[in-house]
């Protein structure tokens, strides 16, 4: 199941809220959430839900084992490291088998000419997220940052929580430990959570889907894109799509969490206003960046020893995590190299230059990065980049891309405006005014509620509209 689905919004969610809030008992509430989460997952993966439970069980046992080690003498305590090793081996093993085995075998075949059968695993939904989440638990238990969870139900709830199961954010056990055990959501938080959910939904359904269509049209080509404009337009639309899609999903996850009393860390912080690649990665998919920082980069030695090797490893893995394909690795390494250059001298240089230059630099490298992310086919990527920089031998403009832009120009402008923290500024201002005057408070809250209702209605209508499907007849 996905969030941007009428069944989820109008059936699954209300039912879950209702059953959750009719009971007051914490175990009951955890049970409701765990059961709904498993249904949510099994809806899309009726078989591989077992894998999820298995992964949870492994780390639950690892936790118990490490707890047991701690209670013994110094010799037994040393065994605790086995818990971490087991977690890493099993979780990364699952990831390797289900996500990367096909890719690895394909490459071995290509390199050696061997004709090994390529394993065809369908990637279980969310596996990259939940394996990482369980790893953070085991590692943090080992590091004594969190205490051992003795209830399997509670641990399963942490792993399977439907808010962040499918598309993150990667929630560390550390950040929800207390809330798993005891939490409460005020009416105010439930309200804000719902509003946040609707904003995320609107980002996904109203903006991201439209940008996606435009990107798809402009970037589907044989040979070269139809014009320089089409190439840039397509890649920029994809940049907007991926931001609104992904940050919308995170908003929905955070909002849903709030409705049930969980407080997840923010995952996006206006990445497109960054002034360098380094800053971009502090604002983009924050939970992933910080995961790699705290569980790969720093354990490797961080900036204390062989800094550049550590950076290279971290960014190679970051790229690889996004998908088993060379373009993702290229994309990761591209950012790795940029960040190294920035560390060497560029950051200091950028700081001395006028702000707009560093903004342009940063947007440019990010957009070019998204082109690498978009094309799994290297020759297509090459053709697209060549065209973007005027070496494609194509005309500057074409009617198709132009009409695509004109037909959606208002929405594109809105999408661009909301990439900068306009909403944040306005809502903070309203909050401040509301603190001092009743009139301002009522006015701002009324606007908020009305806008939320409108966005929900719009998104729902668009979701129905998406089922319009006369193209059916193309399926001969």
């Amino acid at each position: 199941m996905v969030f941007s689905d009428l069944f989820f919004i109008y059936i699954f969610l209300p039912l879950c809220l209702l059953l959750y809030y009719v009971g007051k008992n914490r175990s009951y509430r955890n049970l409701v959430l765990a059961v709904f989460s498993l249904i949510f997952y099994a809806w899309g993966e009726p078989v591989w839900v077992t894998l999820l439970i298995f992964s949870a069980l492994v780390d639950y046992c690892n936790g118990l084992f490490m707890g047991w080690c701690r209670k013994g003498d110094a010799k037994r305590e040393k065994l605790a490291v086995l818990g971490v090793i087991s977690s890493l081996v099993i979780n990364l093993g699952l990831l390797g088998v289900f996500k990367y085995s096909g890719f690895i075998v394909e490459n071995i075949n290509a390199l050696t000419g061997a004709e090994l059968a390529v394993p065809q695993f369908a990637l279980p939904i969310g596996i990259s997220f939940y394996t990482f989440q369980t790893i953070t638990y085991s590692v943090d238990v080992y590091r004594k940052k969190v205490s051992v969870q003795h209830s399997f139900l509670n641990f399963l709830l942490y792993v399977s929580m439907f808010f962040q199961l499918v598309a993150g954010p990667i929630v560390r056990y550390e950040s929800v430990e207390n809330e798993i055990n005891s939490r409460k959501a005020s009416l105010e938080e439930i309200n804000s959570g719902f509003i946040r959910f609707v904003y995320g939904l609107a980002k996904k359904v109203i903006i991201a889907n439209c940008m996606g269509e435009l990107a798809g049209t402009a970037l589907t080509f044989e040979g070269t894109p139809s014009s320089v404009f089409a190439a840039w337009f397509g890649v920029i639309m994809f940049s907007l799509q991926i931001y609104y899609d992904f940050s919308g999903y995170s908003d929905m996850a955070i909002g849903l969490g709030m409705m049930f009393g969980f407080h997840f860390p923010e995952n996006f912080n206006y990445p497109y206003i960054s002034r360098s690649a380094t800053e971009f990665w502090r604002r983009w998919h924050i939970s992933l960046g910080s995961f790699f920082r705290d569980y790969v980069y720093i354990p490797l030695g961080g900036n204390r020893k062989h800094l550049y090797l550590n950076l290279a490893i971290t960014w190679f893995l970051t790229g690889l995590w996004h998908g088993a394909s060379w373009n993702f690795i290229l994309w990761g390494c591209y950012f790795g190299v940029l960040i190294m250059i920035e560390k060497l001298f560029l950051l200091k240089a950028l700081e001395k230059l006028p702000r707009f230059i560093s903004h342009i630099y940063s947007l440019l490298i990010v957009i070019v990065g998204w082109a690498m992310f978009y094309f799994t086919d290297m020759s297509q990527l090459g053709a697209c980049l060549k065209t973007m920089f005027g070496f494609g031998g194509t005309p500057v403009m074409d009617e198709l891309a132009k009409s695509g832009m004109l037909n959606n120009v208002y929405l594109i402008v809105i999408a661009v405006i909301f990439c900068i923290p306009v909403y944040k500024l306005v809502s903070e201002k309203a909050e401040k005014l509301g603190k001092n005057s009743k009139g301002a408070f009522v006015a701002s809250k009324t606007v908020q509620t009305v806008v939320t209702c409108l966005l929900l209605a719009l998104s729902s209508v668009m979701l129905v509209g998406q089922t319009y499907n006369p193209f059916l007849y193309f399926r001969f």
Partner: protein
Amino acid sequence: MENNEEYFNPDIKKTINAVKNYKRYSKNYPLISLIIFGVILVSVTAVLIFFERPEKSEIEKRELAKRPEFSVEAFFSGEYTDNFSVYFADTVPFRESLVDLSSQLKKLRGVSSPTFYGSVQIVADDDGSSIETEPPVTEIVTVPSETTTIVVTDENNNTSIVTEETTTPVTTTEITTTTEEEEVKDIAEFSNNGIVVDGVKMYGEDAGIMLFGGNKPEGKRYAEIINMYAAALEGVQIHNLVVPTSAEFYLPKRFSKYSSSEKDAINHIYSCLDPSINTVDAYSMIEKHTDEYIYLRTDHHWSPLGAYYAYAAFAEDLGMEYPDISEYEEKVKYDYVGSLYGYTNDVTLKNAPEEFHYFKPQNVDYTTYYYQYDNLAPLGQSVLFHEYVEGGNCYGMFLGKDGIHTKIVTDAANGRKIVVFKESYGNAFVPHLVSNFEEIYVIDIRYFGRNAVDYIKEIGATDVLFINNIFAANTAKLVDGILRLYQSETGTVITTVPVTEPPVTDENGNTVTTSKKASTKKTGKNETTEKTKSTEKPKKSAQTEAPKTEEPEPATVTAT
């Protein structure tokens, strides 16, 4: 000290009062707001659960998804939940109005300007002359004579028509007409390059134009197969008439890159035909009348008037007299909105209904008989013009349904008998022939179920006319159909294999592009690129972990 207190006190008090005040007036807000959200959620939920769900879409002309039956196997394969999600989303109460509303909302996203539907590629130079495609790769497959049945594997729509026909006995009065559903299907079968709507005008009003993709190798094959007919039918005069479409005459110059030259494509076919075959130059005749209402604005067909001019060209070739347009009885249907609206759901077309003018021959006596298309079982006698049709179905008035085999007997008494091979463009054309032939047999290439050569000999035809629009004459499926009629053994009923695919909502623009290009457009080199594309795309989406049942869009990016 006292001074200080006096100085500070009122300020602190003020702040404390303000906070108290804020607490008081903000206390009830979350509850009120939540009640509003709750009421909305619950009412929509109630509507979704209790209101009647539609089963058919009138605009899209399709059956909506059905509620899946639960079974353990279906559940564990993921099929049940997938189909349930599709069913739930596809059959929302008030769907039609909501879909309409969403298409109107989409128009608000920007400045109104030409909108392209489907996958549009550059297929021509700036001046509109077509870019040469790869040399023909497809060969004419001659099936050994012992092969009796050619299995057409890819005709899901056809199959549904088969069952419909065979289960419902049609009596004289109940000849059904071509439904709009089939018209929309027609579009899909053609070698099209998308549709442009909005910003395109015909006769001063809003129009939709289907862009011509072109496929010369397929056109050559079309010609070669007709040559085979000519070789097999000595003594019978073969005529071929390829009809241009509205894209050729009404597409604004700035879009000419997106539509291949139909004139080139027609000439190419004509140049590949055996000299014994009469090639009818309908193009020149039609070209002279482009300021008249010869093409439908909201439909992919020509208008009956356009068909008349093509007929005039044909009659001139035959050296026969033909009535002036004023000698016909002209009738009008109002508020016609054709297949291009069903295809695009673009409100511009809905808001620009057209008048459907048609012309009934006068002073001629003719009788029309209908036959089951596969075994030729007589269905009885009926009218040639099914004038009861209304609204979007107007084009279906000629000859009834495409799938029915038609025979018209007239009082021409000149010994000329003609067999017409056609797709739906021919429907508007055939009625004109009553002035010139004493017997007219109409074979719809897509549905006829017998060996056509035998049939032509059997009835003793003097003339055979192939009339097809240029999209059809460049489309593998139609060309295969003509070949199939040539090869199939006498009396064999051609079986079609049912391919039932439930409507799937996660069909995205890309997939459509791929399947369409692979099936209709170019050949050779492109097939391999398509292959890599189609294997890579799904893999990418799997790798980047997009939620699997994502909306119809290239949603590869959600999770990453």
